[in-house]
């Protein structure tokens, strides 16, 4: 019977922590944040390899940590499956032996059958008798995943599991894990600094900076509705501006330089006055001036391309809008940039979609 993971951690040293997290069975939560933000320390706390100053970790009825009553279960007593960044397979044991060592109970024959089953699940049939040094990076990662599952864990922890392989292997392994997790009904926590990976894999993303959980939401909400400017910046967004909330309660307006924008319903509860706001790139529509037909509610603004850099199949643009005294950043597919003849110095027309304009909370 799978149970929810519920954790609360507080610490000052060596890495400050202040986080509350709940992960439902079958749910995959990604912890993202810059290096040294405490993501891996949180995993180590769950695994029992690190003791925080204060905190509680509970999985269903099992209390793994409760500093209030001085309870700290050692790693051996926590049913945790963990995939380490560098896998940490036992080099003197074969793939199968790596798995059976983590199994508790069962006869040798049962363990053998179970290891065959697990190896088949991670597409390693036929490689059971190989030693880690005889396997490729991707195959080693698969053994590590199988070993983590071999213990029938109550929670699965993945510490940057794709960082040690090349790009094409990473994509393949991500696909495999996305398929595999459909059959896993325990809470899963993934640590990564790769935003795209978190977005692709996770049901929920928790943004962490200096050990502090800043926002915890599903990827769609997080990338479109970051709570604060800090979260938006950590998610790699630059389109953060300051404006003045005006208009009436039901028809809010946003004064941005000399431009008057009509934001969406979200702004009805926003008090009047100066406010920081954000718009995701997906809600900025870029058009050639000659192709533009705009109405009063279209939030159209003229701009001039200041910078146009081709990055593989994407083109990164920086557009200066003199009316708003601001610069917007956005990526467009390379073929579109070519078709629309987007080059430095070109005048373009930008439409900011109403629902994309999002007010940010003060820090």
């Amino acid at each position: 019977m799978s149970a929810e993971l519920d954790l609360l951690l507080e610490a000052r040293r060596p890495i400050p922590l202040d986080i509350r997290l709940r992960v439902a069975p079958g749910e995959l939560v990604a912890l993202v944040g810059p290096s040294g933000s405490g993501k891996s320390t949180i995993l180590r706390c769950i695994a029992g390899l690190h003791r925080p100053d204060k905190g509680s970790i509970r999985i269903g009825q099992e209390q793994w940590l409760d500093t209030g009553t001085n309870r700290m279960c050692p790693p051996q007593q926590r049913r945790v499956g963990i995939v380490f960044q560098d896998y940490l397979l036992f080099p003197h044991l074969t793939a199968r032996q790596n798995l059976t060592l983590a199994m508790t109970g069962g006869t040798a024959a049962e363990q053998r059958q179970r290891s065959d089953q697990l190896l088949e699940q991670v597409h390693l049939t036929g490689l059971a008798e190989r030693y880690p040094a005889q396997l490729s990076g991707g195959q080693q990662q698969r053994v590590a995943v199988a070993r983590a599952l071999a213990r029938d864990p109550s929670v699965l922890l993945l510490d940057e599991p794709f960082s040690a392989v090349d790009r094409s292997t990473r994509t393949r392994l991500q696909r495999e894990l996305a398929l595999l997790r459909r059959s896993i009904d325990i809470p899963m926590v993934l640590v990564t600094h790769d935003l795209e990976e978190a977005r692709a894999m996770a049901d929920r993303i928790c943004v962490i900076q200096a050990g502090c959980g800043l926002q915890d939401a599903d990827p769609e909400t997080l990338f479109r509705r970051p709570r604060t400017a800090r979260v938006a910046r950590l998610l790699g967004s630059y389109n953060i501006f300051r404006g003045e909330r005006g208009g009436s309660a039901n028809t809010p307006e946003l004064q941005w330089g000399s431009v008057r924008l009509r934001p969406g319903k979200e702004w009805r509860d926003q008090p009047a006055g100066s406010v920081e706001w954000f718009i995701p790139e997906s809600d900025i529509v870029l058009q050639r001036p000659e192709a533009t037909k705009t109405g009063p509610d279209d939030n159209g603004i003229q701009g001039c391309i200041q910078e146009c850099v081709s990055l593989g199949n994407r083109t990164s643009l920086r557009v200066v809008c003199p009316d708003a005294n601001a610069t917007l950043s956005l990526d467009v597919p390379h073929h579109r940039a070519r078709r629309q003849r987007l080059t430095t110095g070109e005048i373009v027309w930008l439409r900011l979609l109403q629902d994309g304009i999002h007010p940010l909370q003060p820090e």
Partner: protein
Amino acid sequence: MDWTALRLSLELAAWTTAILLPIGIILGRWLAHRRFRGRGFIEALIALPLVLPPTVLGFYLLSAFSGEAPLGALWQQLTGGSLNFSFTGILLASIIFNLPFAVQPVQRAFETVPAGLREAAWCCGLSDWRTFLRVELPLVWPGVISAFVLTFVHTIGEFGVVLMVGGAIDGETRTIAIAIYDRVQAFDDEAAGAMSLLLLTVSFVAIGLVYGLAGRGSALRVR
């Protein structure tokens, strides 16, 4: 060939190795994993017999084992016998001068085991003891074998310290290395040659074994 001396040497080497091996594993593991003040001092102390002239070490041990020194006096009180010129005395001396051979290879081996591997074992549900038996020991095994062979062979070949502490009492302290010296003094080149050839063969096989294992050990390293 002095069979009594050979048997005595083998007995001494067996006892020394049996006593030193657990000490070497415990000390080597401790020094490999722990960082503390004074670690360098302890390592230097263990390595000292490597650089100290055997006669110097022998002289200090002779003094410490004598009835006037606390250790020698205590031993005399407990057993009624003297440590000097006895098998127990040369065994104790042998343990001390072989300490670096028993500790250093094991320590180096433990240092190559990534710290995370122990944590991985704990997360697989293995207790500290099972982690040691199933993960650490198999990985440091070449180092343990090296320590075993080096200690054994070095004990058989040791001359200076044993002569200083034990003298050359037949059946009690005259080891094969001392017997060779005695035979040369007595112009018995044939016996000295036979015993020397035996020691040469044993040493060569032993050192070959150590190098062979060192090569195999490197193949097991984590990539």
